[in-house]
């Protein structure tokens, strides 16, 4: 067999595998969009659920997911970015920092239901926050932290050492090197990591299952000690626990969650590509 034919066959086979990677995504998105589109009405987006959730809208679940994501961001961003700055800029390479890094990597691999159970034990029961937005956000934040810390640390380390050296040589302090050069230069990478972490938080069911999610609560949350509905859990509930649930409502809910998550993902990609074009070091 001559090498041109080998080349052709290789090319076709690899092309097919690439196509097979894309197919499921296209199929999932296409199927959900096609089946859910007719559920999307103004009432569906802005209304309360009625008649055992078989009619009306999913506003409380949308708001719930947005509130949970925002609350998670408020907790996870300062902790995660602060920790990353410490690890990358201040910490010396000792057994302690190596252990911390190892812990972070391992935390990223823990199944989300374990975080859910931890949140139940720690925040809901031990700290007596009850089933609440506070407990849910804290649980989601802990789950998101490893993603944010490792992405932010990587972005910080990518900033050339010379920039820091120059600032020291000008009489600047370590903090000034972080404040004026390292952090601004690493920001796009950090933002991308933060969004990807929050994305995971927004779509997860297990961590909120025991800590915040309400089965049926047709009103908007009033305080951080309130329970709330949330899209992923709502989807789970209407797909498994409510007999006679109309198909298009299930697909519509899935579509809203998908659009929410994918648009966040798109935003992350846009930020990344925008800054990558401008970055020259």
């Amino acid at each position: 067999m001559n090498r041109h034919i080998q080349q052709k066959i290789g090319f076709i086979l690899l092309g097919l595998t690439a196509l097979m990677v894309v197919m499921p995504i296209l199929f999932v998105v296409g199927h959900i969009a096609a089946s859910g589109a007719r559920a999307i009405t103004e009432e569906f987006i802005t209304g309360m659920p009625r008649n055992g959730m078989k009619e009306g809208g999913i506003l409380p679940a949308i708001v719930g997911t947005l509130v949970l994501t925002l609350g998670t961001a408020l907790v996870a961003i300062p902790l995660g970015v602060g920790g990353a700055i410490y690890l990358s800029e201040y910490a010396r390479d000792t057994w302690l920092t190596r252990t911390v890094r190892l812990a972070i990597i391992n935390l990223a691999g823990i199944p989300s239901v374990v975080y859910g159970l931890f949140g139940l034990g720690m925040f809901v029961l031990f700290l007596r926050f009850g089933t609440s937005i506070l407990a849910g956000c804290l649980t989601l934040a802990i789950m998101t932290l490893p993603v944010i810390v490792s992405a932010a640390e990587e972005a910080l380390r990518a900033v050339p050492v010379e920039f820091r050296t120059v600032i020291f040589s000008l009489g600047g302090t370590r903090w000034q090197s972080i404040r004026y050069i390292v952090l601004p230069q690493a920001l796009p990478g950090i933002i991308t990591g933060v969004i990807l972490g929050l994305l995971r938080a927004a779509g997860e069911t297990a961590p909120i299952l025991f800590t915040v999610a309400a089965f049926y609560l047709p009103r908007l949350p009033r305080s951080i000690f309130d329970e709330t509905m949330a899209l992923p859990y709502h989807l789970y509930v209407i797909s498994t626990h409510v007999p006679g649930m109309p198909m298009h409502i299930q697909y519509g809910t899935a579509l809203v969650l998908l659009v929410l998550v994918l648009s966040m993902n798109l935003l992350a990609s846009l930020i990344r590509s925008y800054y990558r074009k401008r970055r020259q070091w």
Partner: protein
Amino acid sequence: MHTIKFSLEHIYFYYGKYMALSDISMTILDRQITALIGPSGCGKSTFLRCLNRMNDTIPGARLEGRVLLDNQDIYAPGVDVVNLRRRVGMVFQRPNPFPQSVFDNVAFGPRVLGLTRNKDELYWLVEQSLRGAALWDEVKDNLKQDALSLSLGQQQRLCIARAIAVSPEVILMDEPCSALDPIATLEIEELMRQLKEQYCIVIVTHNMQQAARVSDWTGFFWLGKLVEFDETQSVFTRPSQKLTEDYITGRAG
């Protein structure tokens, strides 16, 4: 007669157990260019970084002996290292402007250290620094342009402008021309001659012609020792040590 800027007494420098500098004593005069030559790894860059304590951050690095700047021991306890580095500026081997505008690069130090009180003062200081680095005429029409769009030679002069914007007394240059083409190199050398009217300059160079062209004093380092230190003219015409002669004539190194 020039005043003594740096006075070094029996300097030993260690990276962990490795002795990088051994028993170095010399005086560096103000408003003169002192060149340090020698093969790679002979300790001349290490020596340079002892003068503004840039070696401090390296784990396991240790200095013995005394380094006096204007008769004050810069390694004495209680010395403000941040202030020392403002007095002793540094220019690096590769031009390394920040990915910002020309103006912001020069204004960086004054802003961070809070050296100016208002915008006019800052603008004046940036202009003076760019003039001092012989770059003003080339960039004055577009101070907002990205520093990385400048040529390498211009970038290096920008780095010099950035260094002199915080009003140092000494400028250390670590092979400032090794990334530049011959014409840019000559421009930097010309600039160094102008700068020595105001500053004490210490330059590390691999290029012996460069040392001979620009410097007033030359120190020859070999394996962590200062083999010879004298006026540049004597070092290059009547070296007192056989090793120096072998090195500058290309028989050793």
